[in-house]
């Protein structure tokens, strides 16, 4: 399937380049609806692989790449689930999103996240599964999960650790603060900085360059330099589920979704 338009995202293929566009109001939250369409995307990749060199993931929403996991849905689902079954429900969701992100992470073509605006939590985890992040200079990145009493659950810590120094990883996790694109580039999270509103354009020109190289060599190089940290990813799911069952998490989620303040991602 070379083109698809769903409720939360769409994709198109043109001359060896797939563009996957997230477009789910208000802030590209990753819940069951987007997950189902991401699974559809991953399922469609098999047929596209032989003629694909690059996949660009971008957002059609104005001020955000993705605000991350859909916490409203997470809270509503958990609240409607008997306490003893909550962990299993969350685990099932995490297993599915991990399968999607592992497929993207190891895809036999180059993946680029063209990021503008806020790139938070699960949104950053989606970007981290890509080979390169090209960021608008106004973009901001954060892992605010600890404020809710759990850790990033879509593979964030293992992938961040794979790519960056632990000092920055701990700063990001323990403070929950957002960092700007310049800082993110200085620590190696962002590959290229784009001018305001230019991230997708820069990603397209980068993709056009990448398509010029031999596919076999490119795939071998990617496999060699970017191993998927499977063991740590498994442990992350276990730890997330362990932390998630604590009563404090439900209280924090409730507080978050009721917060209409300007910085709801901070406690």
């Amino acid at each position: 399937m070379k083109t698809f338009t769903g409720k939360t995202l769409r994709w198109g293929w043109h001359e060896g380049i797939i563009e996957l566009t997230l477009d789910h109001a208000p802030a590209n939250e990753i819940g069951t609806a987007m997950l189902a369409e991401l699974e559809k995307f991953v399922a469609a990749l098999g047929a596209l692989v032989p003629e694909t060199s690059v996949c660009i993931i971008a957002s059609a929403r104005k001020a955000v790449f993705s605000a991350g996991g859909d916490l409203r849905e997470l809270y509503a689902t958990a609240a409607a689930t008997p306490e003893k079954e909550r962990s299993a429900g969350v685990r099932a969701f995490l297993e599915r999103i991990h399968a999607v992100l592992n497929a993207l992470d190891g895809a036999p073509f180059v993946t680029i996240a063209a990021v503008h605006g806020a790139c938070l939590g699960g949104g950053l985890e989606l970007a981290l599964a890509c080979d390169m992040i090209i960021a608008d200079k106004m973009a901001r990145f954060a892992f605010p999960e600890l404020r809710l009493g759990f850790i990033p659950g879509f593979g964030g810590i293992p992938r961040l650790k794979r790519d960056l120094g632990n000092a920055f990883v701990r700063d990001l996790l323990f403070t929950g603060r957002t960092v700007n694109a310049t800082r993110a580039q200085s620590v190696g999270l962002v590959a290229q900085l784009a001018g305001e509103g230019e991230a997708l354009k820069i990603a397209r020109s980068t993709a056009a360059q990448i398509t010029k190289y031999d596919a076999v060599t490119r795939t071998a190089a990617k496999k060699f330099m970017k191993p998927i940290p499977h063991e740590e990813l498994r442990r992350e799911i276990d730890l997330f589920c362990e932390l998630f069952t604590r009563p404090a998490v439900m209280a924090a989620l409730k507080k978050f979704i009721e917060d209409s303040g300007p910085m709801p991602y901070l406690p």
Partner: protein
Amino acid sequence: MRTLEQTTQEVLDLAAKHFQLPAGSLAAGDDFFKKLGIDSLQTLEMLSRLENHFGIELPDYEVQGVSDFKTLAERIQSRL
């Protein structure tokens, strides 16, 4: 080195320019959330704009609870 007054004025000018308000329409004591009507995503964008302009990092937790331009400028000043 900028003075606090200069920093405050630059913050006011930056906000007025970005939100396309007439020069001089914002004052140091104004509540910028009310005056500019910004939401959480626009707050993040403004933070990036300020950091890029002043060449600093301004952690969110240092401006959490700050709502007027003067206090915001003081927080920026301490990072210059």
